[in-house]
């Protein structure tokens, strides 16, 4: 009933012409479609918002092209999408071309974030490709006067029983693919997959390892100029004085651009722009104000700021009585994305139209922001995604795009490349927010968890553009745009409360999200958002409770978990690690375990680790880790393993070493000396990742699933090695040493 109404509305919205093609598509697919699910009349993944098949697949005489509105960020999904399309279209992998996010060419898929690319775009491409293949078969049947069932496809062609071949290019005419997707598709059976499920080598790697142009940083357009920005020394600093005359006379300098507190210099050559930037920085006088909180007192700072409190989960079973109760507080500092290649963008302003090449995660929302900043209609602004250095969330990419656009507008016709300095990236990127969690739980008489209380204090975890006010250039202009009011990200995905609700089965539980709207430091989305700290807290505290119960950590987790896929992942990781109840690690070593289902609705991941602690210095070292992951149907196993390996190594670096530092006015962690991260002397001996494949199940994504479990697993191993529980991130050698000596 409900479904019928919605379908009707869609028909009306689609208009007469689309209605007809929609019907013809319907009949082409009629034989093959499963009965449409009553409650799910809209097509899956991003087809919901971009339903036309030719938004995803375009075929002409030159070949077949696949489009995604997502941005390749080094996760390798461009290769995975190509695999999916090749499989469903029945065409050679090599013959496909994949085009990524471009406001002129691709669907608007919002942000490439939240490990959603496979779920949104992968699913859309899979279904679009399957439906395109059905249309091509139907068209061949019509032309040949044969039944669709008698035809098959192979290698980009429809083949008749007599061997007659009609290539896809021959079959597509006019707007044939400009039809709306049907709610369901006849997908290929996983047992027959030829490309999905194989570790196809990544398409981008050969260029990257031979010095090809692979990044926006490598772009060189004819006549391109080099720009550098001079950022204020601290948040809110006002430019009081700047004599630009001397800088304008420096060799190669084309222009100094000043707009309020926004200051930049443009030169013919790159190093000339750097020298000019230094001269300009020396000439600029700023008025600063001391506005930053006390770095060593974040716990009190955060919990005493006004917060908007929401109970996001409550369950009660008064029949279960508490015997022993413990509580603990965990903290996470501000942490930096710290891309190895600082943010960069190229922009060109010609005839009133702005083009920006950027490594943003969201070309469409970023276009919106830039258009607003420049007071231009969005249609006159085009953003094209070009890969950058790995970003792990919202780093300086969008800001650099805005910088480039603002500078390029002042120099019509010539392309302008802006590259941030290391120090600018470290000081000005929006950090991963600091967080506090307070936990309190009890065991019942049988050593099971009887009640569970979880309170999390956090800022929002996304200040991404949409409006101009999210971008530094717009904030610094003479007529500035205000930073938009922060909003909590809605559940079930959540932001600060991402993964705050326990995935375990506790008879009594209460989870409160304390959303803090004041943002003393500039923050935004960093890989896994709140899940990193929430999983670290939950999985550390589970171990504290296991210790209290005298139970093995793995068994204790299984005892509280009903979800079968979760159990499988835990058992697989434990087995791969060689986990044994009552195991004794070698002296000064410890074993740790942790598990989470990312966002409680995406991929499952468990990590077991062995950590060595030097009792003299406190220095921790991850010796080895074994992980298991269930990400639904696996498209590229090696790509998935690469993501999880990377997540464990990166999370280890966050967990052991990293915190943004600041005094009362300035960010003081401004390079790799002042913001140390993992180096090769601390790289583990081995990391093994086991995949539990789920053929035919939805894609669950993987980019962020490992961060939380890796952190807690390492923390638990340190506790196991030292007998001391550390609850404040990062778990530095100094803190470990103090705990050992305490």
């Amino acid at each position, binding site marked *: 009933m409900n479904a019928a109404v919605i379908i009707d509305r869609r028909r009306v919205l689609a208009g007469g012409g689309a209605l007809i093609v929609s019907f013809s598509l319907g009949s082409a697919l009629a034989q093959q479609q499963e009965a449409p699910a009553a409650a799910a009349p809209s097509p899956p993944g991003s087809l919901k918002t971009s339903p036309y098949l030719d938004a995803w697949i375009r075929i002409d005489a030159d070949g077949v092209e696949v489009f995604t509105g997502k941005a390749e*960020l*080094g996760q*390798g999904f461009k290769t995975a999408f190509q695999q999916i399309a090749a499989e469903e279209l029945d065409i050679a992998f090599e013959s496909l071309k994949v085009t990524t996010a471009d406001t002129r060419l691709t669907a608007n898929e919002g942000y490439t974030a939240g490990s959603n690319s496979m779920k949104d775009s992968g699913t859309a491409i899979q279904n679009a490709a399957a439906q395109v293949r059905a249309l091509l078969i139907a068209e061949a049947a019509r032309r040949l006067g044969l039944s669709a069932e008698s035809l098959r496809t192979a290698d980009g062609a429809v083949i008749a029983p007599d061997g007659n071949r009609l290539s896809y290019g021959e079959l597509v005419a006019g707007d044939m693919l400009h039809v709306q997707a049907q709610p369901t598709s006849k997908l290929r059976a996983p047992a027959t997959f030829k490309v999905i499920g194989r*570790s196809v*080598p*990544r398409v*981008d*790697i*050969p260029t*990257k*390892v*031979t*010095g*090809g*142009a*692979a*990044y926006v*940083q*490598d772009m*060189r357009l004819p006549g391109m100029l080099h720009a550098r920005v001079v950022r204020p020394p601290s948040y809110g600093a006002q430019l009081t004085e700047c004599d630009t005359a001397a800088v304008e006379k420096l*060799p190669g300098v084309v222009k100094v651009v000043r707009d309020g507190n926004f200051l930049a210099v443009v030169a013919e*050559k*790159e*190093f000339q722009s*750097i020298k000019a930037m230094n001269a300009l920085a020396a000439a600029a006088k700023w008025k600063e104000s001391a506005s930053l909180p006390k770095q060593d007192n974040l716990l009190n700072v955060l919990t005493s700021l006004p917060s908007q409190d929401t109970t996001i989960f409550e369950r009660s079973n008064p029949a279960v009585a508490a015997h022993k109760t413990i509580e603990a507080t965990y903290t996470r500092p501000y942490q930096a994305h*710290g*891309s*190895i*290649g*600082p943010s960069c963008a190229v922009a060109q302003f010609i005839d009133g139209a702005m083009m920006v090449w950027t490594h943003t995660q969201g070309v469409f929302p970023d276009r919106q922001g830039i258009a607003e900043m420049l007071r231009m209609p969005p249609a006159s602004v085009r953003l094209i995604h070009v*890969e*950058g*250095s*790995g970003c*792990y969330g919202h780093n300086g990419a969008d800001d650099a795009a805005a910088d480039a656009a603002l500078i390029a507008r002042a120099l019509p016709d010539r392309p302008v490349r802006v*590259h941030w300095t*290391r120090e600018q990236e470290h000081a000005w990127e929006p950090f991963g927010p600091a967080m506090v969690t307070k936990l309190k739980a009890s065991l019942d008489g049988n050593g099971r968890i009887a009640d569970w209380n979880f309170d999390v204090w956090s800022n929002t975890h996304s200040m991404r553009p949409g409006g101009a006010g999210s971008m530094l250039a717009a904030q610094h202009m003479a007529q500035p745009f205000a930073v938009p009011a922060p909003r909590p990200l809605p559940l079930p995905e959540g932001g600060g409360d991402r993964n705050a609700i326990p995935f375990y089965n506790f008879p009594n539980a209460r989870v409160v999200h304390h959303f803090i709207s004041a943002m003393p430091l500039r923050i935004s989305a960093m890989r896994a958002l709140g899940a990193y700290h929430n999983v670290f807290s939950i999985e550390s505290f589970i171990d504290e409770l296991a210790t209290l119960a005298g139970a093995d950590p793995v068994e204790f987790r299984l005892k509280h978990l009903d979800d079968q896929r979760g159990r499988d992942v835990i058992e697989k990781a434990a087995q791969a690690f060689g986990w044994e109840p009552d195991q004794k690690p070698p002296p000064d070593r410890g074993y740790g375990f942790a598990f989470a289902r990312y966002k409680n609705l995406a991929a499952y991941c468990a990590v077991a680790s062995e950590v060595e602690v030097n009792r003299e210095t406190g220095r921790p070292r991850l010796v080895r880790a074994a992980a298991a992951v269930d990400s639904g149907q696996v498209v590229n196993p*090696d*790509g998935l393993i*690469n*993501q999880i*390996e*990377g*997540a*464990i*190594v*990166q999370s*280890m*670096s966050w967990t052991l070493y990293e915190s943004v530092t600041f005094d009362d006015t300035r960010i003081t962690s401004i*390079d*790799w*000396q002042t913001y140390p*991260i*993992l*180096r*090769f*002397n601390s*790289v*583990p001996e*081995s990391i093994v990742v086991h995949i539990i494949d789920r053929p035919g199940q939805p894609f669950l994504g993987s980019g962020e699933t490992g961060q939380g479990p890796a952190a807690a697993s390492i923390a638990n191993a340190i506790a196991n090695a030292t007998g001391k529980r550390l609850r404040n991130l990062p778990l530095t050698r100094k803190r470990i040493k103090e705990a050992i000596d305490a």
Partner: protein
Amino acid sequence: MMTLKVNGREHQVDVEADTPLLYVLRDDLKLNAAKYGCGLGQCGSCTVIVDGKAVLSCVVPMVLLEGKHITTLEGLGTIAEPAPIQRAFMEEQAAQCGYCIPGMMMRAQALLQKNSKPTDEQIRAELEPHLCRCGTHMRILRAIHRAARLMDTADASPAASGSAR
């Protein structure tokens, strides 16, 4: 005008003497592999080989390079004919974003030219100046071990080595 020998070819470049090599490679010679990561000698992404030694090109001014032989990743091989180190990184799929990788490869190449059978410990020690934010370290190590084996077999079989042709 200065003369710079890069990847076996001489180039006349018109730059100021204090310009770090990195900008000359990227801006004047239009080479991509050496990357700007920090400009401070802290991350290794700008590494190239100068007279057989791995060097951080972001902190070496042109004035020190007269007459020296510079090799960048572009000079080792191509997609069609990759050098052993390039083949090894492809075969191990040793990249996520890949931004740090060219620098790592040049450091590894310099090491393998001196020491064709480095231990795991020697490789780790050698790579100490290099940062990777994506956490690709395990694969980078595997790729360098693989490159050592590939170079070994390349030396052993004259048909496969470039100089034989």
